[in-house]
């Protein structure tokens, strides 16, 4: 699915959170959004997921204006994984994943065998098929994030948007979740804090103060000048012979 923002503005109490943002994410692309805290990454993700109506400009899904689409239509095509959504309910992994079928069910339509199959597949795709009956509150942070991704995949989306899915996770879970997400054949937009992890995206966009200040392949965008100017850090690139790409070495904050 091609996701597109055209001259999108978003403001709260006169404060501009998004300022004339335009971008197009191509079908099947893994697109990273980076930027300092409060630069507008989450707000832009929400606009692109059809969850926020831009105050000016428009958001398009495969050329259709999202404002004109009904919520369940959007949810059948676009899935969104929030940062660390939690619950106090006692529910099993499988029940949480089954929530992903919500946009396809009406009050009168019963749960079907097909829905069961899709939930099974979603659990398998994130490697949780053996934990389907585990209760939510017994899961670790990484496992919970996997459940959220499985729930999103149960929506059978053509685009998956993730808001800092690796926040607060240990490094092993960070890497395994990013690897899982990158392998998905659908359009993926992912907000990231870790710039080294962003290097693996097809393209990245840099947000600063609500504006999209640069967009392109990671190596072209994440220059030392950009790191200094937008992120406020001194850094160097070091060669990693094994990965065949330079890795970032942060020196100090400006």
């Amino acid at each position, binding site marked *: 699915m091609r996701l597109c923002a055209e001259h999108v503005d978003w403001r*709260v109490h006169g404060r501009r959170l998004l300022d004339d943002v335009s971008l197009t994410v191509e079908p099947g692309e893994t697109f990273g959004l980076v930027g300092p805290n409060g630069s507008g990454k989450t707000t832009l993700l929400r606009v692109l*997921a059809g969850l926020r109506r831009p105050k000016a400009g428009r958001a398009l899904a495969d050329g259709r204006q999202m404002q004109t689409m*009904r919520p369940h239509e959007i*949810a059948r095509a676009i899935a969104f994984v929030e940062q660390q*959504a939690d*619950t106090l309910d006692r529910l099993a992994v499988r029940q949480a994943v089954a929530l992903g079928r919500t946009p396809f069910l009406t009050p009168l339509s019963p749960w079907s065998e097909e829905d069961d199959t899709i939930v099974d597949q979603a659990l398998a795709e994130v490697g949780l098929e*053996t934990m389907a*009956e585990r209760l939510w509150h017994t899961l670790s942070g990484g496992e919970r994030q996997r459940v959220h991704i499985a729930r999103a995949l149960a929506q059978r989306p053509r685009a998956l948007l993730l808001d800092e899915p690796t926040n607060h996770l240990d490094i092993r*879970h960070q890497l395994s979740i990013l690897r899982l997400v990158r392998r998905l054949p659908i359009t993926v937009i992912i907000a990231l804090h870790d710039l080294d992890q962003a290097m693996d995206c097809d393209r990245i966009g840099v947000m600063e103060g609500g504006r999209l200040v640069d967009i392109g392949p990671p190596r072209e965008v994440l220059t030392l000048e950009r790191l200094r100017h937008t992120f406020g850090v001194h850094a160097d690139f070091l060669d990693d012979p094994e990965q065949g790409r330079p890795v970032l070495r942060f020196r100090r904050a400006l």
Partner: protein
Amino acid sequence: MTDAARSLASTTAPSGHSNAARPARLVPSARSAWHWSWLAPLLLFAAVMAGTAIGETAIPLDTILKVLANHLGDATFAVDRIDAGIVWEYRLSRAILAACCGTGLALAGVVLQALLRNPLADPFLMGISAGASTGAVSVAILGIGAGTLTLSLGAFAGAGLAFGLVVVLAHTAGSGTGGGRATQAAGAIILAGIAGSQLFNALTALIIAKSASAEQARGIMFWLMGNLSGVRWDDVALALPAALAGLAICLWYRRALDAFTFGADSAASLGIPVRRVRGVLIAAMALVTAAMVSMVGAIGFVGLVIPHAMRFLVGSRHTRLVPASALAGAIFLIGADVLSRILVAGQVLPIGVVTALIGAPAFALILIRGARTR
């Protein structure tokens, strides 16, 4: 499956939690719920019969059935006229009304706890009981309406006014924030409800303190704690449709209620029109609650505790939780009403006192057992 995923699954899977297998798969469990569903009307009927039979004068079951047949089926069984009067005019309507109120309050609790993601949410959170009290004392003590308004109408008007005020306040306070707006709105509703309740409780206290005689104050206190005395069939004619409509709305929105499991923002990403669903459900539950409170006063504890107790028993999916809570609320309130009549001989206790006296220890037991199975 990726290698990382496989290793993740293999390291975490065998940790045998005792309760890991308890919540069955979603679909079979939903089906097995239907196997049990024939029990619900039976249990409810038994509870209503018990509520009619038990009292200061015990009435045998066959007498009750004869009276029912006489009234509903044109039968002409010979029944003692006093017994017939007690059954038909007094106890049966009272038991049915108790069932309706229990259902309505329990459902309102289920909905508010699900939508606001707050375990302390209950039907009176929205200022409804406080507003109803103010409305009732305005009519009873200040004489507003000059005798044309009944206590119930005054209570209903007060409840509606308080709810409207809380909604306006919540809307004003909750609008215009950035990310996670839907979740923040839930917090605004709770705070607005607390503010509204405090305001109307203070107004009630002010009216009582300034204008009421000791006798009036005692009567109002009694009403505030819940009172099913003097219930007539007219009340049932209002309460039964209200309870059934509440049940129908909750069942219709059961999947939307499930979608709020991870909060309002997550519900929105699942295609739920959050503002509309929340508006419809909260307004419907406020109406149901206001109708119940205006007839029987503010009966506490049912709306808070029944949903929690049922979550322990049937899980948190609303396909099962909604019917289970409706049934449990009905039976619980019939039981509480029976106890309120027989606990102290020759005196009827306020039913709110009984619900709390039984409900609190029962709930404590459930909490402790729940903690052990974790």
